[in-house]
């Protein structure tokens, strides 16, 4: 047992591919069930969720959601996300403009955090999911472990992009001193929120098992 337990991992021996062995995993409760019927089989006997060997229309839906997100990313960056007035002077700011202000004022840490959440993470998701979709289409078998890792990374980091939406909401809720200073959200933040939602949905619709299918159908 101790020899099996280096690095805190149990040694598992794969018995093969579930689909080729006639088994299907319930995507909700994880129960291994006998695969009966076509792509749309009977519901899971334990949790009654519909069983399917692969997420239906995964590639088409992921592409659609990802491209919608990409399209909305333009207005999200071009339109102002917030309006600020201070002592009678009003100004609007975009996401990149806000980051630039922090950087220029010497708040490098904050600038980097916001840049990561609002620019780096969404762009990484577009790049990684797009790359995975193309690799799946080409049934590229080399580097599958790395691609699986990248997919799990996008699942873990994706939701941090909501950060800027909540920062804008907090500032708008707090800075309410009519006559002195007010802050208001602007339409850009709606587009940005929509980008985050669409990329989250895209990652959910992508079936990572497609990365592991060979040329010949297993």
């Amino acid at each position: 047992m101790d020899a099996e337990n280096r690095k805190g991992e149990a040694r598992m021996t794969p018995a093969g591919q579930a689909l080729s062995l006639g088994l299907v995993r319930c995507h909700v409760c994880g129960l291994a069930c006998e695969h009966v019927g076509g792509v749309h089989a009977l519901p899971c006997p334990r949790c009654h969720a519909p069983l399917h060997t692969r997420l239906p229309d995964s590639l088409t839906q992921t592409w659609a959601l990802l491209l919608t997100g990409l399209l909305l990313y333009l207005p999200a960056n071009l339109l102002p996300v917030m309006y600020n007035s201070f002592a009678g002077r009003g100004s609007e700011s975009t996401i990149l403009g806000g980051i630039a202000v922090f950087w220029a004022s010497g708040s490098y840490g904050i600038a980097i955090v916001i840049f990561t959440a609002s620019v780096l993470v969404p762009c990484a998701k577009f790049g990684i999911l797009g790359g995975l979709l193309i690799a799946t289409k080409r049934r590229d078998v080399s580097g599958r472990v790395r691609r699986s890792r990248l997919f799990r990374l996008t699942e873990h980091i994706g939701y941090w992009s909501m950060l800027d939406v909540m920062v804008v909401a907090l500032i708008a809720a707090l800075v309410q001193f009519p006559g002195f200073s007010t802050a208001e959200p602007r339409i850009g933040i709606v587009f940005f929120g929509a980008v985050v939602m669409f990329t989250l949905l895209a990652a959910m619709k992508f079936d990572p098992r497609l990365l592991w299918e060979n040329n010949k159908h297993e």
Partner: protein
Amino acid sequence: MKIYPQQVICKHCDSLYTRKPVRPGEAAQCQRCRAVLYRGSWLSLEQWFALTVTAALFFIIANLFPVLEIQFHGQSQATTLAETAMALAHSYASPLAIPVALLIIVCPCLQILLLSWVLFHACRRKAAPGFAPAMRLLAGLAPWSMAEVALLSILIAAIKLSGLVSITTGPGTWALLGLCLLLPVINHQDFHPLWMLKTVKGKHG
């Protein structure tokens, strides 16, 4: 339909394994795609339930008290999590008000309530009434629960405003910190022992 409760299938690459017991902290890893199949839990069902109730208390405090307060020219303004979401409602950003409220308030709340319900009965070695729908909803809520994003955004907003006004964190922020430490613990336990409470009609393979 035959079922195989002793088998586990990797959700990332569809490899089939026979479930082995793992020790607390130990992870069963897929040999093909290196994903974690399941982890050994440090917690008993009773401890898991206790932490979930603690999370519920943190959640209540985090939502009742202001998270941030600012002072400006003798006036002060405070906001709670709900008021933050509502601030979006009266502006161009009104379509975001309900989604933000769902992500930072409703989803974590439902997660805690459903998990408490299931675990309360699990501690009595029973499947709770409405067990399957509750567990299905829990699985669906997981990606939409963003309390930790709310906590970081409070920190960023505080730093952003600190140059202009005097700003203090309210009790809500400290409770939210506690909640954010507990939520990953209670939500990332292995749900397999809970699912095993439900007896399934079907031939065991």
